[in-house]
Structure formats: C-alpha cells, structure tokens
C-alpha cells in the first residue's frame, strides 16, 4: 500500500530528477564531453533504460551526453562480403524490419521482435541494450552466436572487441569513462548456414526473458554440422557460450538425439540465479528445451539456405 502511494506520488510529480543535457554535433565533441564529465555523466542513446535509472535515483548523473544527433552512429548497412554493420543507435524496430537482417540474420529479428512493444522498439537502440549490460539483454545471445564484434571509440582512438568480451558483469561493461560504442559488425553468414533465437518469458510482450538461446549452424555438403556457435541468455552474469554443446554438435548430423544432447550440455554450462522470475533449476530446464529446439531450427534454416 505504501509502495503504491509512493508510486502514485512519483508518477503524478511533474518534475523528474534534474540533470544537464549536452547535445554534441560530432563524435569528437561527444567523446570530449564524456571524457571531461567522467563518472558524472553518461551517454544517452534511446534512453529507455538510462532515463529510468536516473528518475528512480538508481544512478546519479550531473549530466547526460545526448548522442542521438551524432552523425555516423545510426544506419544499417549490408554487404555480402563484409556482412552487417549496425550503428550503435540502430533501433530494434529498424532491425526487425530491415530486409537484409530478415534474410540473413533471423536470430536478430527474432530477438528484436520480443523486446518490449513497438513504441519502445522505436526508441531503444542495440548499442544501448549492450551497454545496459543486463544478463537478460535480448540482443546479446544472437550477436554472440553470430560472432559479432563492437567498436569502442574514445578521444584517443578506437578498439574492437567481441560482444561476449564487452560485458563484464550485470550492468557493467568494459567501457571506461570517455568511451562509447560506435558500431556493431556481424560477419556475413557462411554458405549453408542458418541461425535462430528463442526466448521464454511468461508474457509474450513487455516482459523480460527468463532464459534465451541463440544458435548459428553451418552444414557441410554431407548435412553434418561444420561449425556452430550457441549462446545462452539470462543464465549467467556475463554472456555465455555453450562451448561443450558446440563441440558435441560439430561433425554430427542434426538428429533429435544429438539436439537433445546439445540441450543437456547447454543447460549444464549455465550458472543462473534464482529470482522473482524463476529459480535456477527452472532456468536450466528452460535452456535445455530452448537449446534443443533452437539448434534444430538453425540447422533447418541452414539446410534450405543454399549458397549465399
């Protein structure tokens, strides 16, 4: 009851926690501001997580550096050799609707489509989703399964790290003050490869995943698994690959028996927490089922993909 009243008071209050807003026009200006402001500032992308954290008082910032109007941070390009390049500010709605993503990276589409609702997906960005570093971030497992990398820029230069290496813990990334994510690169899919993502949450929209699995599978001419990557979401503090499951799948035909074994090995790799959304054993059981399904789905897509 008290919580309810407090919430009502909060939502009726017009004024939110105050902070200054910088609106840099160039990347260099943004990086300079972030360097100068240090810990007292944060880069504002879609704002769907950051603004809430500020309003709830979870994080105190003197300022935000609004990077929405910085050129070069938006835009999605596809190239048959180089693959997909996503500006960090690419929204989930853009990703789910793009014809190239829909053709080559269904795992990303499947992840984008379960993020909140259409209104939020028009605001929320993929760079922000990674930077927020929630273990349940929906974009992370598909990007890990697809072998994506992210470019980090600072006033002194740029560096490129794999997605799985850019998150260091719940809510923590490897970014140091003065750095931002600029672009995400997803390699072009191999010939005869397919990918898939599946998430379980009690509600189909406006909910956070209890567990998720993404897989990318490449088949050889014999229909055996030539290569694969399996990523598990919301079951560990940092992005997790099901390495043992991948090793079990390589060289094998994708039979129900091997998919079942893959599910078991994937579940064994997890280190989930128990919380209000589900217990650790429950999350593990979900991963087992999802991994079994998702590798079969990715393999089925690979079988029909043909040469790219």
């Amino acid at each position, binding site marked *: 009851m008290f919580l309810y009243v407090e919430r009502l008071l909060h*939502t009726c209050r017009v004024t*939110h926690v105050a902070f200054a807003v910088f609106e840099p026009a160039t990347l260099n200006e943004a990086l300079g501001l972030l360097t100068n402001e240090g810990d007292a500032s944060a880069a504002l992308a879609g*704002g769907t997580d950051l*603004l809430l954290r500020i309003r709830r008082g979870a994080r105190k910032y003197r300022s935000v550096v609004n990077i929405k109007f910085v050129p070069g941070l938006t835009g999605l390009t596809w190239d048959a050799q180089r693959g997909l390049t996503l500006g960090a500010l690419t929204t989930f709605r853009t990703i789910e609707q793009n014809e190239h993503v829909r053709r080559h990276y269904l795992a990303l589409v499947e992840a984008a489509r379960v993020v909140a609702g*259409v209104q*939020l997906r028009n*605001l929320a960005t993929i760079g922000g989703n990674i930077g927020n570093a929630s273990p349940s971030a929906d974009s992370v497992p598909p990007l890990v399964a697809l072998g994506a990398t992210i470019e980090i820029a600072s006033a002194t230069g740029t560096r490129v790290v794999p997605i799985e290496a850019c998150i260091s813990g719940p809510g923590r990334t490897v970014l140091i003050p003065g750095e931002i994510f600029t672009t995400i690169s997803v390699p072009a899919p191999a010939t005869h490869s397919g990918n898939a993502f599946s998430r379980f949450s009690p509600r189909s*929209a406006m909910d956070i995943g209890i567990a998720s699995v993404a897989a990318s599978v490449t088949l050889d001419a014999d229909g055996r698994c030539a290569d694969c990557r399996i990523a598990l979401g919301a079951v560990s503090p940092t992005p997790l690959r099901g390495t043992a499951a991948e090793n079990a799948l390589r060289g094998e035909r994708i039979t129900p028996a091997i998919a079942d074994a893959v599910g078991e090995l994937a579940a064994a790799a997890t280190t989930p927490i128990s919380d209000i959304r589900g217990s650790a054993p429950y999350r593990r059981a979900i991963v087992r089922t999802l991994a079994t399904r998702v590798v079969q789905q990715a393999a089925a897509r690979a079988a029909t993909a043909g040469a790219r």
Partner: protein
Amino acid sequence: MTRQYVLTVNGKTSTVTTEPHQSLLDTLREMLGLTGSKKGCDEGECASCTVLLDGAPVNACLILVGDAVGKSIVTIEGVAGSEGPHPLQRAFVELGGVQCGYCTPGMIVSSCALLREQPDPTDEEIKFYLAGNVCRCTGYNKITAAVRSAAETMRAADVPAPARRTA
C-alpha cells in the same frame, strides 16, 4: 537552467521554455495543455503516452523534450479531422473499445501508425502492434475489433491515417 524549444505538435508550431531533462510527455501535458496523452506509468511500460514522432509511435515519457525538436509530433488531439472524429475514434466508441479510457489515446495513436503501415491488418498483426499498449479493462477483444472495423471503413473511404500531419 531552462532553454527554449520549438515544437511542431499536430501541425502547429509552439515555443516552450523548460528544463532540458523534462520529458516530451510532461511538456505536452503541463506546458501545452495537451492532456490527451496519458501518464500511466511514466516508465515506458504502458504506452498510454504514445505519440507519433515523424510518424513512428513512441513513448513520450521516455523522450527528452529536445529530442522532439524539428520533428512532427502527433498526439491524440491531432487525430480527428475538421469533419469530426477519426474512423478509429468512432470505431472505439461504437464497438466498446473504451472502458475507463486511460489507455485509449495510446491505443488510437498506435493504431494510426499500424494502419498507415498495414491498411489491412490481420488480428495477429493488430495484437502484435498493440502488444505494448496495456489495457486493464476491456480484455483487448473489443479494441482489436475496433481497429479491424476502422481499417475497413478507412479502406472503403480512402481515409489517410494522420501519421505526419502538416499545417
């Protein structure tokens, strides 16, 4: 420190003086008197504050006022034409898509965007598009029926969805 912002809302240009951390929703409601957009949760969970920003439905509670400068903003107040309520508004009334009314502005503004993207949506497409709009009264069936009915009316009469209203 306050700043001046020039906003184009429902085809009309207004200048407001406010703090840069203020949300577009608070600006619309408290400074421009456009209280049709509702403040249900103020955290992007309910979509009762949905407005169209350059045609795209977004949660006005999660946008800083400065992010709306130079863009076309359409609120529920801009949905009706000079000839009276929009077919979506009529359908919501006629088919009982409204109970307490709190979610209705967001439902209708979002539906405007849906019908512009997809003039003949299936029930599944309607449900997918409105999945972020929370209603605690109707059970959604009458809302879906209202959108379907308005879509038919609009296709028959060739009524455009007011996605990018200009002056």
